[in-house]
């Protein structure tokens, strides 16, 4: 009597309480994404709707007033408008402001219906001429599909979200290309390591020098500063000597150059990667950018695409890994009289242009082609417009929420299936903090507060990973059943034998007694 509860108490595994119900609810989570869009109307369109747009209007008018008759100045107008509209109302992250201007306005160049600037503003030209008499509702109904289109370009569309969820949600069999697109960018992570490596296959023939610090400072850093709310980035660079490509380029006598075919590019990376070395000091994913400078005997080296045409950038990238660029310096060699090694200074502007484009692809800044009639301002010095950042933040938030949800549901499933895992208090607290951050993130997403949503989703993902990979979960995982038998058999087997024997005895006695009774009756 005393033994049973004692035994029960001492052999039980400690399992802290987990919010299983809430986790299960999360499994069937449906997120509704909301964006705050604000449309401002100019009085030219509709006097009734021209509320509180007075000052915006004044600015637009002022810009127009400064309009000289020349056509070249006209083309700059929309840029100026974008800037001044931004200074007027700093729109919060995740929102889109659409200004609707009349059909006849000269603000936008001919043939352009929608203009998207650097910030979170778009200028939309009224479509078909509207009669003034129409009311507010009809006007909105007329504009709605076009505003949706603008918003889809500027914040998110269905394809973006499915791409973000592609690792978790089975995609409907789409085109191969869209799948490749969705797999190109890195998965969301709290930090990234960016490594630039200069590969010098033959230090005897040339001595390379690159001003990587200056180049990073002027080309890469502005983009990363812009992306700082998304993740932490750390940059380093190295020079690798005697680093060879994995394939021997073929000499093309018609071009007098060596060529690398698109098919053989896949074999280039492996031998180089062995030399790159992983960052031992952090576990964030690494983006590798390699600059390969072929030696004098193997240059120039050109990369050919599938159509056997030379690639203009002479570079290629490998999804979720990084990019490689070949930099030919053969024209920098003298006519054979200069003593080797030749000192070569690398033109970082050329290199960084390619690497920046690759970096944008790897980070998932998608520059999908704009629909017809759209004029998208090219990204400026930061390499990233505000609305592009928003776009990225939307998809990253959704991806984070999805990842954290799957992690936490699979953890709950695992703990449910395997009974003898110990669940410590700190795991329980991690799990519940994940759940609360997830709920908060979803609520913020629904409210359209993108910045907070991203913050909470990052917290959720961190906490869920910490709970999932906690080493204490492994302690009793491999405690096999046969050991339990080994412990309990010596106790129970000797006890069972006399009990069983006496049971048999009782049974046989009972049978005898019954027989005796029957014979008595007879």
């Amino acid at each position, binding site marked *: 009597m005393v033994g049973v509860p004692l035994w029960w108490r001492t052999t039980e595994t400690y399992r802290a309480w987990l919010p299983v119900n809430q986790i299960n609810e999360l499994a069937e989570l449906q997120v509704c994404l909301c964006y705050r869009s604000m449309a401002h109307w100019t009085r030219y369109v509709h006097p009734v709707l021209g509320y509180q747009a007075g000052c915006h209007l004044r600015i637009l008018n002022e810009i127009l007033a400064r309009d000289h008759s020349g056509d070249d100045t006209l083309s700059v107008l929309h840029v100026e408008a974008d800037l001044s509209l931004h200074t007027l109302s700093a729109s919060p992250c995740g929102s889109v402001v659409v200004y609707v201007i009349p059909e006849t306005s000269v603000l936008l160049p001919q043939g352009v219906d929608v203009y998207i600037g650097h910030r979170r503003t778009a200028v939309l030209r009224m479509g078909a001429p509207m009669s003034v008499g129409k009311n507010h509702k009809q006007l909105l109904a007329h504009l709605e599909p076009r505003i949706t289109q603008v918003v889809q370009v500027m914040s998110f569309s269905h394809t973006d979200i499915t791409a973000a969820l592609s690792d978790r949600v089975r995609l409907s069999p789409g085109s191969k290309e869209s799948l*490749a697109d969705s797999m*190109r960018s890195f998965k969301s992570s709290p930090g990234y390591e960016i*490594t630039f490596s200069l590969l010098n296959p033959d*230090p*005897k023939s040339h001595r390379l*020098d690159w001003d*990587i*610090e*200056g180049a990073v*400072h*002027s*080309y890469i850093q502005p983009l990363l500063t812009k992306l700082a709310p998304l993740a932490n980035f750390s*940059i*380093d*660079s*190295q020079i690798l*000597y*005697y680093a060879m490509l994995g394939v021997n380029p073929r000499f093309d006598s018609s071009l007098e150059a060596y060529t690398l075919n*698109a098919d053989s*590019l*896949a074999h280039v990376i492996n031998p180089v990667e062995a*030399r790159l*070395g*992983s*960052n*031992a*000091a952090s576990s964030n994913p690494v983006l590798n950018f390699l600059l390969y400078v072929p030696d004098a005997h193997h240059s120039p080296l050109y990369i050919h*695409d599938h159509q056997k045409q030379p*690639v*203009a*950038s002479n*570079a290629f*990238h*490998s*999804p979720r890994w990084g990019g490689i*660029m070949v930099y030919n310096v053969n024209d920098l060699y003298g006519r054979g009289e200069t003593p080797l*090694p030749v000192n070569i200074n690398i033109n970082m*502007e050329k290199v*960084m*242009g*390619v690497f*920046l*484009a*690759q970096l*944008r692809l790897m980070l998932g800044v998608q520059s999908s082609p704009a629909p017809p009639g759209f004029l998208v301002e*090219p*990204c*400026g*010095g930061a*390499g990233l417009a505000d609305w592009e950042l928003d776009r990225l933040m939307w998809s990253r938030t959704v991806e984070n929420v999805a990842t954290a949800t799957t992690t936490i549901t699979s953890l709950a499933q695992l703990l449910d299936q395997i009974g003898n895992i110990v669940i410590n208090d700190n795991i329980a607290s991690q799990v519940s903090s994940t759940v609360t951050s997830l709920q908060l993130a979803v609520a913020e997403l629904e409210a359209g507060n993108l910045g907070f949503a991203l913050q909470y989703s990052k917290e959720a993902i961190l906490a869920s990973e910490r709970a999932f990979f906690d080493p204490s979960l492994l302690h009793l995982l491999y405690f096999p059943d046969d050991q339990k038998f*080994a412990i309990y*058999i*010596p106790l129970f*087997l*000797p*006890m069972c*034998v*006399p*009990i069983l024997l*006496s049971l048999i005895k009782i049974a046989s006695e009972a049978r005898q007694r019954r027989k005796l009774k029957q014979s008595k009756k007879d």
Partner: protein
Amino acid sequence: MIAITQRHVHDAAVPPLAGDPPAADPPSPPPSKDDFQEELVIRPLHSGDIYASFQFRTVWDADFMGDQKVSHYRLFPKSLGQVITKFSVRELHISFTQGYWRTMQWGQPYLPSPPGAELWVWFQDTVTDVDGTWKELTNVLSGIFCASLNFIDSTNTVQPSASFKPLGIGNVTDHSFLRYATLPREIVCTENLTPWKKLLPCGSKAGLSVLLKSEKLFHSTFHSQAVHVRPVCQDPQCRTTSMELRQTLNVVFDLHTSGQGKREWSLFKMFSRTLTEACPLASSSKVYVDVTDNPQGEQFELSPATPLLTQAVVLGDRRTYSVYDLTQQASFGSSRSLNMLLRWKNSHNNVVPPVMLRPLLHSERYVAGYGLQAGEIHTLIYNHHPYRAFPVLLLSAVPWYLRLYIHTLTVSSKGKDNRPSYIHYQPSKDRERPHLLEMLLQLPPNSVTEVTVEFERALLKWTEYTPDPNHGFYVGSSVISALVPSVVAMDTNSTLDRPLFSSFFPCKEEASYFMRVYTEPLLVNLPTPDFSMPYNVICLTCTVVAVGYGSLYNLLTRTFQVDEPSPGLAKRIANVIRRFRGVPLL
């Protein structure tokens, strides 16, 4: 999965913001200077063996101690640099050694190291949680060098108070930032050599490192590879510091196994490779051959002969070296490859080579006693100097499962008691930390000093035994650090251009030089339980429970009836006899 990058970023992105040209940025400092040197020293040993010592040195004028993060690497390996930056390491010394350096046969090595793995690290004084950082650092280094350094934990880490001073600049005295650990059981092999070679700028592609082929290096009696990172002065005034990375590899080839018994050594015989070029990145690339014992070529013949001779003061002695400068084309001769050959003249008539000068300091250590309960550790330290006494620091770290009785510590030399002038003893804690015993001893001239201490072997828990417990448990080497009186004046100018092998330990005064001697590691047997014990326990419990429970159960379930007392034994025997005889029973 490979895709071609079709376009550049929009052209507008390439120049920085219109109003913010790069000229407006703070001008980035010129890339910090780095320098790489490589060197090989070959020393014929008196036993007929040959000693080859490689040193590769990268000096980088980067400030690792400052706030600025170092992230752009050129010659310095990135993997190591990142570790140093992340863990705020001031100095790092790591060595992997296979075999034991026989001081009495071979003399002193240029860089001593104990058998197994040794790691000691000085952290910067900004580190708050030194133990946590140390734990992470050992795990990371274990990954970099493919070694079992992750087995370093608090049970084999000590904080020496005096023996391991920083070898670089910096006058740190707070030894709470120092951690020292050895793994005497570590086996060193190819998987440790490959990552070590990867740290070299030329890899194994050019320069001296082409000789480092594992099939020959590990077919040797002694192999030791090490990495030393420390801050050094840039100029004699020491206004700015640089980071120095020294990679060393020492190997001793045996006369009989590698040399087929013939006293004739060549680069090809030792490494199965010859030298064809220097590493193009190296500012200096030299091969030294120790010809001190062979001034007129009466002992051995060195070919190709080199006119270049240099003298260096190393380990308290002035030695003469033949130098081959690999950056000069002339060194390679017409065959375009350098294969040095050392041929002894009288290798066949078995002439006894001249007696080697006995090393001034050497030591031995062993375990005495019998049985599996108690024992005694003896450490013998020899001072072979004929007339000078000098002090040494002895450090021994003993695992907790050998419980030292510190009251039995005796130190005697020449039959007399020798009182250590300084003793630092940290008792062990079971399963937490080892014993640490450090003392400063004065060694009388031409004497043997014996340090003995008794210990008791502890019983381990059954999960704490190693997979092969009957092999025994290793106790790491003791370390003897000494300032040995020098025969010749030592060179105290540390910034002067000197061969690498003579410039590792900084020298503060002319009259003595620093030396470190490692004793043999000990192999101690601990009482080992019978590991089939659980099964015996199961059998025993089964029996005990069956007997105990069975009888209790019987007692509870039996119905008791009054039985007629059975007749006594005598009566029964009588009845049996009576039955035989046919007489009526009693």
